């Protein structure tokens, strides 16, 4: 089975969020970057488990500039076989998805996995766009994925319950919690990752469909109003009369 896992760089979850250039760019100064957690914990690890069960290869691909190479090495250390970097700054989801589609077309991947969303842009878009561009069926926010021959069984959580879906490969699936357990790379993995192939391909010249023109931070909360733990009637009264939420 040939599996492609799309990974993205994301700021560490504790990173300070601030902006530069007139609030038009995320301030990367002193920010640590990680593999987007959904891509690493769920998409990549599930791909590795499927490879362990069925044989095959796991390729990781990212649209990014050379600064993402360290996170690519991390994903290789966890166990991916090879990596491809499409050399461009990902300007919007469509731009990213189209670059990925141009790369993946004609490569006959049986399964393409992405994370549920990037924790910086929170779009949940790239997977669906990629599926449409490749004309493949698509399951969003999956929490379970099993493969038997050329058939896949997928579960995803909806507000009403868990939906069970079947489909024939090839498929695009975005991975959410439940899919797999996080793996910590070991020393052997880290050593091996240094010599695994990382191919850089040139990006196509494409225009984005959307642009972020300004970032802002939520207004900071006023000071917390403390309530006597013995006096919950007061809290209820404040929630009713002041906050008007009950």
């Amino acid at each position, binding site marked *: 089975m040939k599996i492609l896992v799309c990974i993205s760089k994301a700021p560490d979850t504790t990173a300070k969020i601030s902006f530069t250039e007139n609030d038009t760019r995320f301030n990367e100064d002193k920010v640590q970057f990680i593999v987007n957690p959904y891509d690493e914990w769920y998409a990549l690890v599930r791909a590795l488990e499927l490879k362990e069960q069925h044989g095959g290869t796991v390729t990781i691909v990212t649209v990014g500039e050379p600064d993402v190479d360290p996170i690519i090495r991390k994903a290789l250390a966890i166990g991916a076989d090879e990596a491809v970097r499409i050399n461009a700054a990902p300007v919007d989801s469509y731009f990213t998805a189209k670059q990925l589609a141009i790369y993946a077309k004609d490569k006959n991947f049986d399964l393409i996995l992405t994370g549920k969303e990037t924790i910086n842009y929170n779009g949940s878009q790239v997977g669906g766009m990629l599926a449409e561009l490749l004309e493949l069926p698509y399951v969003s926010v999956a929490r379970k994925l099993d493969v038997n021959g050329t058939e896949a069984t997928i579960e995803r959580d909806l507000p009403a319950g868990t939906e069970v*879906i*079947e489909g024939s490969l090839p498929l695009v699936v975005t991975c959410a919690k439940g899919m797999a357990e996080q793996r910590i790379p070991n020393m052997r993995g880290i050593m091996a990752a240094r010599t695994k192939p990382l191919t850089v391909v040139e990006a196509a010249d494409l225009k984005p469909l959307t642009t972020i*023109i300004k970032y802002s931070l939520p207004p900071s909360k006023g000071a917390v109003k403390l309530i006597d733990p013995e006096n919950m009637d007061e809290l209820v009264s404040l929630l009713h009369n002041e906050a008007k939420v009950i």
Partner: protein
Amino acid sequence: MSVLVFADAPHGKLAKSASETVYYGKKIADKLSSTVTVVTYGNIDQATLAALGNYGASKVLVNPEVTDENDQTLTALCVEAAAAESATVIIFSFDPTGKMLAPRISAKLEAGLVAGAIAIPEMEGDTFVVRKNVFSGKAFADCAIHTDIKLISLMPNSVKPVQTDAQASVENFTPEITTGKLRFKELKAISTEGVPLTEAETVVSAGRGLKGPDNWGIVEDLAHELGAATACSRPVADIGWRPHHEHVGQTGIAIRPNLYIAAGISGAIQHLAGVNGSKVIVVINTDPEAPFFKAADYGVIGDAFEVLPRLTEAIKKFKASN
């Protein structure tokens, strides 16, 4: 020219989010001097569909032949409806179905999509500028859509629909579309008697401070009394005290209820990321230094095992006297 709203109808039931997306679509249509058409599917009774007029729909197109949330089938249905109605704006809910459809349609029509919008767009000439959450709710981004057709998926609980008594006209809409390849087998219902977390207006949440899964009764009692959904912090879901679908935060679900009550949760930045869109936050914690107090509107420094039951009683009393 019209504003098209896709209303999800999983398993034959119109999604609650339809009132929000239709109302949101109507706000945009008013600015464009146009009207709202809804496209939906499945076997839904006429009255329910006509009632979407209450929120601003003029017309509802329904395809009763489509019965499951097949990504490719529904994409084709929306694309046909957009063409039939000459839609220049298409609205979705930012829920699992919206996350499946909106990106597909965006790629198909090469139409710019803002996913997870939290406000009505500003219109600048032919460009829409739409605000959305980024960095898991820690910041906002104003996104410009440059294309002629504009796609927006709306974060649940971002608008408060106002109802009128207008009715929409309902038409069957059965264009020639090819059925998608996925097969939908079953829906294993989860045992929530209550409200789904993402749609809930009030959420009662608890963390490791509750000490063990057997202690959740006091959380559920309060939630029951408030008609609230229950949620939890990540470690609580990871150790299996609570089901995974209750995990809120940066790596769980992001929610924006009117009222979020957190007991025994420290308020780590990754937890806050999923809940700081809540309108009002109440924090109950024994530790006055818990970081959550900085993000709270109301704080109770005290033992959840005493405070929660006391709060439940106070709510009961309040309900009885109102």
